[in-house]
């Protein structure tokens, strides 16, 4: 710690020394979309003659300190017409900018500039941004526009296959992604077990995925941060946006409130699989819905309030058998305060919840589970001078885990009612980060986060001989659950286990010339929550468990280096990155682990390590009639679980084995071609090495059954996965002259109807008694049609 502190002070001093040279003033303000007054995130403010710049933060705010004089200020944002404004700077000045969307720009001449110039300058690397507009263009199955499916087309991002939930970033597990919707933690981002995601694209403003070089303001997950921001709502006029698709319909309303002081947005989406099933006279029900609401109110020029909520739910029921319901709820109250033209602050109070209910009618069982958290955070951006920018803040999260309440479904049920142990924890974080322009070409970012996790009672915990909940049985060569030797009772708020971690973050960019740069970064991340799941892809019924005596925090270290280049006046970008990542305390499960309704998870797990490395290549075309990208990733992701104190060699004989999401090659090509004002065509192609699986290496006869035998974990692979999707968007010509804007989207998913194996299962055909391998493929060729409107 001391070392880092000293480093900070040294650097701060160093930068102060060249601060008193020249008269400087601060230019600050907010950047808006002219049409809707939505604030814009990540807009580049750039002064070419000084090669100085900054970008807007999550609330559209910017601040830059410049020498006195007249400057040409370029304000540019992808998809918007660049503005060049002359600013006379003789004192600290507040200036807001309003950008016009490119498609709506009346001027035919678009000023060509280095839109992504700052991409090259800032030390931030391994980040991918997607706007709601570009997500909308990507062809998807059944026309259901999907953030999570879109980010899987980026290099370094994969998932376990169609219909599987979540995503994997740089060989990390799906519980290692911090998914934030307006800063609220989303624990399960899937609808219908992974077929769709919970994010309604119409309500989304901006999506940012940090795969590495993660800023110090984020913490709590080992692999990535997916930062999704909802729209604030149009504060100029009432707007209605909607769409009718095959799976769901959407409707979004936004309007000003209290003149132009406020705005709101309300967006709803509901599936109607229910209706189809009902029409088919089927008693089964499958459906989801979600509701986004956001409102903002400008108290004055310096203060703004936001309130946003999300509520989404899935309901699945099968006649006389199951009822399953699960969903997320979040609410967030935020206060933006521009303390000075150099100091921006935001205070957020957030509540989020994930809950599910599983009713098994034929067992007479009702099982409820939920996780609640309350999060308070305060973040400040301090734009000290043209060389230094500080970010600092604190956060605290209170968690309450309720892993399961078992209830009788009917009074006659033979179920004994029971409550699995509730768990409580607090996670706090304090961080500071400094972006430092060392020289004209060299910019560094030094960050440090300190996180502290305290798990506390009241809870009664088992004790085990030698403190080992899992022991190695050397005569059978297996890991077994140890018998508890006793119990310890922890009182209310009494600490059970606590952990503190320093998480240094470091990034450096060196600009080779106007067009290209080299960046490198290091980050350490501590993760205190674990998703307990031993299935290939997590299910909504999996439990999040807090760290404790036997479940240690996951500690990830990631190193990355990259080369970034803009070509042809930013028509093309190239990003090449390589990374190496290790994670300590990655749990794996003993053979035959039972995790459902498990009160003593520690008896089912062993702590291991994982490592991942890879090379990513991204070529993007940003301008012209044809836009899109080609992404290629070459990577490896493995884990190893040694016996450690439990004895024995460990799982899989203590050897490294592939993680279920290791994909050697991953290619995505996505393109958008604007043929004319009426027609736009889109296509994407995906090729991936098949997912690692374990194939049987023999069979034996037991109890009249043929049983496959397995040995090495994940040593085999499913056949490679590939798929081509196309879509066409028809914008009727008469749109131009009316308020009602509409479009039709026609899509075909999996055009050549490849039967991609979602899984291959081995077993006995119970009709013939012979062994067979059965492939399950999910989507064959799937056409879709969607109608979207706006007025």
């Amino acid at each position, binding site marked *: 710690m001391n070392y880092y502190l000293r480093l900070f002070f040294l650097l701060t001093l160093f930068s102060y020394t060249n601060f008193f040279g020249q008269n400087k003033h601060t230019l600050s303000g907010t950047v808006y979309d002219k049409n809707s007054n939505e604030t814009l995130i990540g807009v580049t403010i750039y002064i070419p003659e000084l090669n100085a710049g900054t970008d807007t933060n999550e609330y559209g705010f910017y601040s830059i300190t410049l020498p006195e004089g007249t400057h040409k200020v370029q304000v540019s944002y992808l998809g918007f017409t660049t503005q060049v404004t002359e600013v006379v700077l003789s004192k600290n000045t507040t200036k807001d900018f309003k950008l016009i969307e490119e498609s709506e720009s009346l001027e035919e001449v678009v000023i060509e500039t280095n839109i992504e110039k700052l991409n090259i300058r800032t030390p931030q690397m391994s980040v991918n941004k997607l706007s709601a507009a570009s997500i909308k263009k990507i062809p998807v199955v059944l026309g259901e526009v999907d953030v999570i499916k879109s980010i899987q087309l980026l290099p370094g991002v994969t998932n376990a296959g169609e*219909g*599987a*939930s979540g995503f994997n970033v740089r060989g990390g597990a799906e519980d290692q992604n911090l998914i934030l919707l307006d800063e609220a933690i989303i624990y399960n981002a899937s609808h219908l*077990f*992974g077929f769709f995601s919970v994010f309604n694209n119409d309500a989304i403003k901006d999506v940012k995925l940090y795969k590495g070089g993660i800023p110090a303001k984020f913490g709590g997950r080992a692999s990535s941060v997916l930062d999704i921001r909802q729209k604030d709502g149009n504060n100029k006029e009432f707007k209605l946006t909607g769409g009718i698709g095959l799976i769901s319909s959407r409707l979004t309303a936004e309007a000003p409130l209290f003149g132009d002081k406020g705005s709101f947005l309300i967006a709803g989406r509901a599936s109607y*699989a229910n209706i189809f099933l009902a029409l088919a006279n089927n008693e089964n029900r499958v459906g989801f819905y979600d509701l986004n609401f956001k409102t903002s109110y400008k108290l004055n020029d310096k203060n703004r309030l936001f309130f946003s909520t999300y509520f989404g739910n899935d309901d*699945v029921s*099968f006649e006389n*058998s*199951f009822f399953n319901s699960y969903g997320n709820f979040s609410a967030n109250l935020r206060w933006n305060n521009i303390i000075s033209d150099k100091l921006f602050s935001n205070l957020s109070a957030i509540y989020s919840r994930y809950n599910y209910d*599983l009713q*098994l009618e*034929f*067992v007479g*069982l009702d099982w409820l589970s939920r996780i609640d958290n309350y999060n308070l955070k305060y973040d400040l951006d301090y734009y000290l001078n043209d060389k230094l920018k500080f970010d600092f803040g604190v956060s605290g999260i209170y968690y309450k885990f309720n892993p399961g309440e078992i209830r009788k479904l009917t009074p006659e049920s*033979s*179920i*004994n009612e029971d409550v699995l142990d509730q768990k409580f924890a607090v996670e706090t974080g304090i961080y500071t980060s400094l972006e430092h322009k060392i020289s004209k070409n060299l910019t560094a970012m030094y960050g440090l986060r300190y996180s502290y996790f305290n798990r506390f009672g009241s809870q009664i915990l088992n004790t085990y001989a030698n403190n080992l909940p899992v022991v190695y049985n050397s*005569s059978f*060569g297996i890991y077994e659950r140890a018998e508890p030797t006793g119990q310890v009772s922890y009182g209310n708020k009494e600490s059970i286990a606590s952990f503190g971690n320093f998480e240094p973050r470091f990034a450096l960019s060196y600009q080779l010339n106007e067009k290209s740069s080299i960046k490198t970064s290091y980050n350490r991340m501590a993760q205190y929550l674990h998703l307990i799941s*031993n*299935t290939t892809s997590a*299910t909504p019924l999996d439990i999040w468990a807090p760290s404790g005596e036997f479940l240690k925090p996951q500690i990830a270290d990631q190193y990355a280096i990259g080369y970034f280049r803009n070509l042809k006046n930013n028509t093309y970008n190239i990003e090449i990155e390589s990374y190496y990542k290790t994670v300590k305390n990655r749990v794996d499960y003993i*053979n*035959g682990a*039972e995790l*459902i309704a498990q009160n003593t998870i520690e008896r089912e797990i062993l702590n291991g390590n994982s490592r991942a490395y890879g090379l990513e290549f991204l070529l993007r075309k940003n301008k012209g009639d044809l836009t899109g990208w080609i992404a290629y990733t070459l990577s490896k992701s493995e884990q190893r679980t040694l016996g450690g104190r439990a004895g024995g060699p460990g799982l899989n004989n203590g050897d490294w084995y592939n993680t279920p999401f290791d994909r050697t090659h991953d290619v995505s090509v996505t393109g958008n071609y604007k043929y004319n004002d009426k027609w736009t065509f889109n296509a994407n192609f995906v090729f991936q090495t098949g997912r690692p699986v*374990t*194939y049987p*290496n*023999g*069979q*034996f*006869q*037991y*109890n009249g*059954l043929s*049983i*496959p*035998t*397995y*040995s090495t974990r*994940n040593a085999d692979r499913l056949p490679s996965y590939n798929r081509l999707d196309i879509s066409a968007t028809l914008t009727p010509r008469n749109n131009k002259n009316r308020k009602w804007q509409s479009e039709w989207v026609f899509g075909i998913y999996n055009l050549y109807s490849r*039967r991609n194996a*979602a*899984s*291959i*299962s*081995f*077993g*006995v055909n*119970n009709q013939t008694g012979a062994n*067979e*391998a*059965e*492939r*399950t*493929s*999910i*989507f064959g060729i799937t056409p879709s049609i969607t109608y979207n409107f706006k007025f």
Partner: protein
Amino acid sequence: MKKSIYILFITISTIFSSCTDVVDVDVPNGGARLVVEASIDWEKGTPGNEQTIKLSTSTAFFDSNPNIPVTGATVTVTKENDGAQFIFTDQNNGEYLTTNFIPEIGAVYNLNIVYNGETYIASETLVGFTEINSVTQEDGFNEDEFRVRVLFDDPEDEVNYYLGEFIQENLAVPSLASVRDEFVNGNEAFVLHFDEKNVPGTEIDIKVFGISEEFYFYIEQLIQQSGTQGGGGPFQTTPAQLKGNCVNVNDPSEEVLGYFRLSQFARTNYTIQ
């Protein structure tokens, strides 16, 4: 309960036009391993003196003749509390038979097999079973399919594990289901049997066994990995090596398949209405 959750996920997948087909796959071959199917099953109300132990070797996964009997082995079981020894004589077809076995609930038995100069041992306790109270049927997941529920009393003062075995003519292999008294301790517990072949008129031979905790975890994993549940899919657990309780005394690392279990069971039959 697990099985029900799997079915839930499988059903979800099928909503989205998922399809399955049989494919050719190259699988590794781990070589022949000794398989011990030493199931000492004592039907309630019988002396239980006749018992069979089967020895075989494993084969390649797609081998069309998976029955490779092991002959020439010496098989004995010793009852630990009184030292009684039961010699299982080689029937030269992979079966080893005894007619003087003495079953006793709670007694520990030791298995000893000498084969090819190697000695294999296992030790297990005989687990009792209460009684089948009744068998009922209810609507299943599909139309014309019925779920069969076998009810029995669960003793309150201990943790109990059960195995249900269902044999019917329209299924080529027995259907197995394991349960424990996790949520129903001390109450009337049940084991469920569901299969799309459970149509009216189907006659089912039903056995419910009391089993040990270790065997429960073994058979639970075995049932999951047998694949007859139509497993697979993103929500399947990663299959893993299935280790039983038989060990080569000289080479504990040798993979010996199968299990030495001793169970009391009750038997009934039921015809779906």
